[in-house]
């Protein structure tokens, strides 16, 4: 399985309010895409449509060869291949760090307990938290929680990772650790879609930057194009605001 995403004419409404007004884009296997834009521009909603946490009103989303907007598709199976990391971590508070990671692979992939534990320890080692395996999430800092959340998503060995503002809820000194882990993933060829406000990170790591506003893709291109030579007035004014901070 690879990690391609194909989106065509995606429309999402909340009641009368149209949040996504016909989004089309294609994300290649191994590509790292950062989505930027003002809040309320629909970027998180778009991300959540990609694994059907939000039902779409119309349009097509194909993940690899699965049309997930088709009700015949087993969405649970597709989700196994798409890891997701949330702004507020959403770790399971009643399970230890290790159990947070082993639950899904044991349950869905039939790993034995010792196989799952070995996998968890390997992932915890990768995010630098092997010593926290036995503790409960509430004793971790925000940055540590987010790294556990990444490890939990990786335990299903997905080909695609979705990040929904992964550093927005973190204290500034914690942001670096999380971004480093994400950088490592990008270098290893993971397909990544990242909704972020970290412009420096986007510049450095992204293959492509998508700027959304008002439920539409206004502009997209390499970081060099979007950040240094923005074509649209809306892009320029947004970048002026965020980069001058």
């Amino acid at each position, binding site marked *: 399985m690879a990690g391609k995403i194909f989106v065509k004419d995606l429309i999402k409404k909340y009641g009368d309010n149209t949040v996504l007004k016909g989004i089309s884009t294609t994300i290649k296997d191994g590509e790292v895409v950062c989505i930027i834009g003002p809040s309320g521009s629909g970027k998180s909603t778009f991300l959540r449509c990609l*694994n059907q*946490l939000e039902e779409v009103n119309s349009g097509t989303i194909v993940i690899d060869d699965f049309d997930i907007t088709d009700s015949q598709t087993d969405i*649970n*199976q*597709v*989700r*196994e291949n*798409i*890891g*997701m990391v*949330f702004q*507020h971590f*959403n*770790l*399971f*508070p*009643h*399970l*230890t760090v290790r159990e947070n990671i082993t*639950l*899904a692979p044991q*349950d*869905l992939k039939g790993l034995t307990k010792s196989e799952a534990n070995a996998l968890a320890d390997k992932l915890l080692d990768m995010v630098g938290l092997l010593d926290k395996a036995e503790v*409960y999430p*509430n004793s971790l800092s925000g940055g540590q929680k987010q790294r556990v*959340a990444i490890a*939990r*998503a990786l335990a*299903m060995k997905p080909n695609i990772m*979705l990040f929904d503002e992964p550093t927005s809820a973190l204290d500034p000194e914690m942001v670096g650790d999380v971004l480093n882990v994400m950088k490592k993933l990008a270098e290893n060829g993971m397909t990544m879609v990242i909704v972020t406000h970290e412009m420096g990170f986007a510049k450095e790591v992204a293959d492509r930057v998508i700027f959304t506003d008002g439920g539409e893709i206004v502009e997209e291109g390499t970081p060099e194009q979007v950040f240094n030579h923005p074509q649209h007035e809306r892009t320029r004014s947004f970048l002026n605001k965020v980069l001058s901070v």
Partner: protein
Amino acid sequence: MKKTKLSLFFIMMVSLIISILATPQPVSAEKKQTYIIGTDITFAPFEFSDSQGKYVGIDMELLERISEINHVNFEIKPVGFNAAVQAVEAGQMDAVMAGMTITPEREKSFDFSDPYFQSGIQMAIAKDNHTIHSYKDLKNKVVAAKTGTESAEFIEKNKQTYGYKIKLYDTADVMYSVLNAGNVDAIFDDYPVIGYAVKQNKPLQLVTDYEKGGSYGFGVKKGTHPELLTMFNQGLKELKASGEYQEILDKYIEAPASTQDEQSLMGILKNNYPALLSGLLYTLLLTFVSIVIAFFIGVLFGLMSVSPSKLSRRIASIYVDIIRGIPLYVFALFIYLGIPNVTGLKLSPFVAGIITLSLNAGAYIAEIIRGGINAVPKGQMEAARSLGLPYRKTMKKIILPQAFKLMIPSFINQFVITLKDTSILSAIGILELLRSGQIIMARNLQTFNVLLIVSVMYLIVITALTKLSKKLETKVNANGR
């Protein structure tokens, strides 16, 4: 608005199903092995429980002898006068024998035996009252009787003539207590009852003769069990001929005063602790059995109320609305008397009680579960689903374990509420703690002391169980988190 319509529709459907299932009561003239006879909790000297908890009295002894003469079994159910009458009307019981006066009104729905006792009513005043010597002295005084009795009719009829005020009470024990307390000046009751009370050294005195009144009869639901009436009449005739009838009457109307201490707190406790403990045991049994059944009902409807399916949510909310909208007392009567009345299905009070409490607590537990699940942050469901876990698995492994922890205090609370609610079931004749207390009160008239004992028993048990649950809660919360 839409919801109300749907609930109404639901209720109508249920009633329809019940009425389809209902079959007319068969008129059987065949002799049965065992007849169920309802009687009053306490109507001394006709029926009352002695300090061993055994039912004795004129009615009881007559029934016992008549059953021996006819070789049949009578199963006596002391459920209270009104409950017995309703149970016979509903076909739950076969007959009522409870010092029941034969009246034209009652003859519309009952067939009566030959009268077995000529009753009458009499006035009693407090022992230390020296101002009342006849009805004429009642001017501007307060006179009491029990609601719906011959005595009540009598004092109503003569109100103008003698110029007194009337107060009506539901139970004898309360009426005798207020006379003692001086809140009323005179009471009227059936003369054997008053005579028995005087013989029992109650602080009463009689200053007038009794008024001849109606006759007591043994009643069956109109059109049913003619063979039972024949047996009763035959037996009564034999007892009168042999002189046994008079012996039984003399035994009770001439009964010697009880020597047992039934006045002091300690004395009441000492004489009645087996009855009180057995009442408490019933209360606990009812609570535990009902709460366990309610838990399963609650989990089912609670899960339905958060399910993605709109139909499931609607069904769950209708169920909760129905239960919340009907007082528990009414609901208990509906289950015990209403449903058997149309279906012919006989329910024992205990089973009816369990059904009532389980359905009632089940609705509240469903609400607790719904609230607990909704209190788990939405992100938990999303995180689990994004890993590929299906809905049911997510519920089981992620949402419910967290929700249950949040629900523990509410569960404890519901448990205590259900335990308290069992006392309402005294109304359908279950011998739980309150009912056990009521029987003792009716005998010794020590309303304050008996209610004090009963209250303290509830208090101790509820406090102990609450403390225990709190400990359990702390323990559960210490694991994890």
